[in-house]
């Protein structure tokens, strides 16, 4: 991580140690402190290229061999970038990263609304009776409970790190990680059951169901990966009562995924 931080330059030339008093190469009198900003990161660009390769791999599956390492490398670089909080000049009470997160979540609201709208439209038209004989409400209830408990675990972890309680913070975050993986396995089992009963993407129910829950599952998967990165950074002692914004941003994302599932649970499983 220290490789990204520009360090104070060495003294110019070789000072004569014997005759000169030691002088620091930088000026730290009040008003003249050096500002340590990391150089701009190239990681988002790498992630962008990797995302493009990922999309290409839909038509060329072998591209995955290239795309996954590129994305993983870029995300790793982004994750190891030092966390800096900048406040815009025009609204100093706002935080740039948090504002960006909320804007991203707003875009996600529209994205999922269109997916859910498509599901409702197909359901009104076709009824999906044969699919509801296979879908298991108890299993989905377990999945919902798992996600809600994981959301609760995140807020408790955030509360702990805000009180500088690192052990409790890490424990709750580990709980969240485990619950996220459990949710994904429940979903995998459900998909397997559906495929087993010949409900594939070729049926009308399949197209909307797999698209909607698949995108949600993709979000959970990204959340789990993000959480793994966050746990590694927590191990390195990045977070404390003075610096918990990274945890808070992850929490916002994770709660949003939870919110989407609450809606999906109602629309897909409860109402029929």
């Amino acid at each position, binding site marked *: 991580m220290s490789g990204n931080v520009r360090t104070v330059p060495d003294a110019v030339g070789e000072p004569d140690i014997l005759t000169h008093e030691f002088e620091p190469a930088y000026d730290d009198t009040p008003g003249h402190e050096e500002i340590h900003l990391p150089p701009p990161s190239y990681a988002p660009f790498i992630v962008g290229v990797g995302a493009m390769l990922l999309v290409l791999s839909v038509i060329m599956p072998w591209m995955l061999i290239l795309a996954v390492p590129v994305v993983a490398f870029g995300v790793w670089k982004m994750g190891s970038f030092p966390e800096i909080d900048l406040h815009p000049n025009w*609204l100093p*009470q*706002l935080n740039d990263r*948090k*504002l960006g997160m*909320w*804007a991203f*979540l*707003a*875009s996600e*609201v*529209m994205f*999922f*609304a*269109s997916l*859910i*709208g*498509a599901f*409702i*439209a197909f359901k*009104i038209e076709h009824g999906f009776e044969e699919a509801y004989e296979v879908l298991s*409400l108890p299993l989905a*209830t377990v999945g*919902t*409970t798992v996600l*809600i408990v994981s*959301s*609760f675990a*995140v*807020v*408790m972890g955030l*509360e*702990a790190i*805000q*009180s*500088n*309680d690192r*052990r*409790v*913070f890490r*424990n*709750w975050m*580990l709980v969240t990680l485990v619950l996220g993986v459990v949710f994904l396995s429940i979903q995998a089992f459900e998909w397997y059951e559906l495929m087993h009963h010949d409900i594939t993407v070729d049926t009308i129910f399949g197209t909307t169901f797999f698209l909607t829950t698949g995108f949600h599952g993709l979000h959970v998967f990204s959340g789990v990966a993000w959480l*793994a990165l966050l*746990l*590694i950074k927590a*191990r390195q002692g990045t977070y404390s009562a003075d610096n918990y914004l990274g945890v*808070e941003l992850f*929490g*916002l994302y994770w*709660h*949003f995924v*939870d*919110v989407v599932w*609450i*809606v999906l*649970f*109602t629309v897909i499983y*409860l*109402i029929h």
Partner: protein
Amino acid sequence: MDQSLVLLILFWAMSGALIGGVVTPILAANKRVNEWLAALLGTIAGAVGNLVALVPLWLVLSRRPDVADERLPWQRDAAPFEPEAEVETGPRPSPLEMLRANFWPASRPVHEHSHRMTYIGVFVALAIITAVEVALTYIDVPFSIVGPLVALSTAKVLLVVMFFMHLRFDSKLYAAVFLFAVPFAAMALIVLSL
């Protein structure tokens, strides 16, 4: 890093590669896959998989402090045979105390308010609402349950957004950014489903 540790990890990855390289061609025997390609991919998957399997262990283990051992080699080797100093340990903590130490966030400094009880209340409310929702679908009621279900899940969404996502306590501008999207989302929903 410790050299012996590197060796151990290397052996671990190699054992995974060995198993992957042997098992994958056997599994792929009846499929139309080139068995050498299968062996190669199995080797890579085995090595990488074994390394990935170590990640949880690495996360859980606590790091040993880097203190240089000043003792001579013979002293270090003899150390296990010396009688251990009596360490004063208190009574073993009860399971409840351990749970509390590991999962109950510490309280904030005096002038700040802790949200612990709020979070627990919201969590209980979410659990109850979910139970009611599921119960509604199992019980025969004379009226349509669509309306109550939509109302209950809206309440759940509001609870999560307001309290877990701190929209209630944070600057109203974040809420404005987020709510900006809601009319568009509603439009997409209405246009698609009508």
